[in-house]
């Protein structure tokens, strides 16, 4: 089969599941991150910063040895050079041979008294209040100096986009491997958690300032949507990715009041109204919230990767929410790391027996494969090979 036909076959297999058709077989899409680079013996730092062909080389090494139907992305998602050129010690990320890391606790960038300002104009709040607060180079800088910094950052970001395009194009055209995440959109409460208030801060806000936080999140949602519409191309058969970080730290009644509306609003717009494929990484334990998730729209192209080690929990999720979610997951990363090959294959069999019938299922790992310790190559290969060979409908 030629490469372009292979690409089309893989992408269509994925889209068939998303469209709630029965595909030819269960798609295999491991939740792959920087494990790929470690497996291939490629320096993450060199791949992300110096030579985009190293990203391709890592993808080729892996996909030559491990059968799979798609990659989410190449994991090069942080424009590292922007911070580098702003100044020494600027920015919140570092990159080493092993991967990208966040530098310590960074997320408390605003105070609860400022929710009103964010509600009034989130973009202006980000620009005039948060950027000078976060970056030493911007604090007390002249207007002219700020303009220079911004122009450099703009150029660096364009270079970053082009760098990734070089790698991504080679992966799709030369390996026939779809990179299925078209864009990433955070829901507003997760932006607040991850980048603005941190865990302690938002935990207090949920109790002491819920209305202000909610109003600010509504405005932030509009900003995120506006940015998406301004800069993104329609995803076609690819997906819009959203990681969900905050929900499982909320009591169900707080989740219902403060977070679920964001999920519903986003899905109504993207999945229902626009018909896009949407992917939520449902991190941590969602079992206490399944009844509440019944409020989500039905029969859309909506994919949920549930971070559970228990196949029976995924079975219950599919049984109760299968009209709302295409379900993804099933293979515990802990098993890929510590289990025997026989145990891994036994779990694959359970996934196929209990989750595949009727479609609506994509085989994947419950967590992201980041460090090389996250799974032995033998086990990762065994799992993907087994499901590829035995997952036919």
């Amino acid at each position, binding site marked *: 089969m030629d490469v372009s036909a292979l690409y089309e076959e893989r992408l269509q297999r994925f889209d068939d599941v998303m469209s709630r058709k029965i595909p030819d077989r269960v798609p295999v899409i491991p939740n792959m991150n920087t494990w790929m680079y470690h497996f291939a013996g490629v320096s993450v730092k060199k791949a992300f910063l110096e030579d985009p062909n190293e990203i391709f080389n890592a993808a080729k090494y892996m996909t030559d040895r491990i059968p799979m139907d798609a990659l989410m992305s190449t994991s090069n*998602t*942080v*424009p590292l050079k*922007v*911070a580098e050129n*702003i100044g020494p010690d*600027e*920015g*919140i*990320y570092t990159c080493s041979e092993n991967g990208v890391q966040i530098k310590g606790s960074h997320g*408390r*960038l*605003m*105070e609860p*008294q*400022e929710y009103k*300002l964010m509600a*009034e*104009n989130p*973009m*202006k*709040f*980000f*620009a*005039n*209040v*948060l*950027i*000078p*607060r*976060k*970056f030493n180079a*911007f604090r007390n800088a002249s*207007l002219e100096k*700020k*303009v220079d*910094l*911004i*122009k450099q*950052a*703009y150029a660096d*970001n364009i270079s970053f986009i082009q760098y990734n395009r070089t790698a991504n194009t080679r992966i799709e055209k030369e390996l026939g491997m779809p990179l299925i995440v078209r864009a990433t959109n*955070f829901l507003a409460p997760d*932006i607040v958690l*991850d*980048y*603005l208030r941190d865990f302690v801060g938002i935990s207090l806000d949920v109790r002491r300032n819920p209305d202000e936080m909610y109003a600010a999140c509504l405005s932030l949602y509009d*900003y*995120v949507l*506006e*940015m998406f519409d*301004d*800069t993104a191309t329609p995803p076609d058969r690819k997906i819009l990715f959203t990681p969900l970080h905050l929900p499982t730290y909320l009591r169900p009644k707080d989740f219902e009041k403060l977070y679920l509306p964001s999920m519903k609003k986003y899905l109504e717009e993207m999945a229902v109204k626009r018909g896009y494929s949407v992917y939520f990484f449902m991190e941590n334990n969602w079992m206490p919230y399944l009844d509440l998730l019944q409020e989500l729209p039905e029969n859309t192209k909506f994919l949920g990767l549930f971070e559970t080690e228990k196949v029976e929990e995924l079975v219950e999720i599919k049984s109760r929410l299968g009209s709302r979610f295409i379900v993804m997951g099933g293979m515990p990363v802990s098993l890929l790391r510590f289990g025997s090959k026989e145990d891994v294959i036994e779990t694959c069999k359970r996934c196929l027996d209990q989750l595949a019938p009727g479609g609506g299922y994509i085989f994947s790992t419950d967590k992201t494969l980041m460090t090389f310790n996250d799974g032995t190559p033998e086990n990762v290969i065994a799992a993907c090979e087994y499901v590829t060979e035995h997952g036919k409908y």
Partner: protein
Amino acid sequence: MADYEYATTLDGDTMEAFEIAARQIAEEKGMDLENVEKSMKKLIYLFVTRI
């Protein structure tokens, strides 16, 4: 405890700097100003979240 005073207004000139930068880039590169301004909207967000 934060090591800064919380803001009470949206005053500041960083937004203005983004606007000036957009105009200069559009002129220098012969690009459509509206498109550059849209990219700046995203860049502001990236500064806070991904940089």
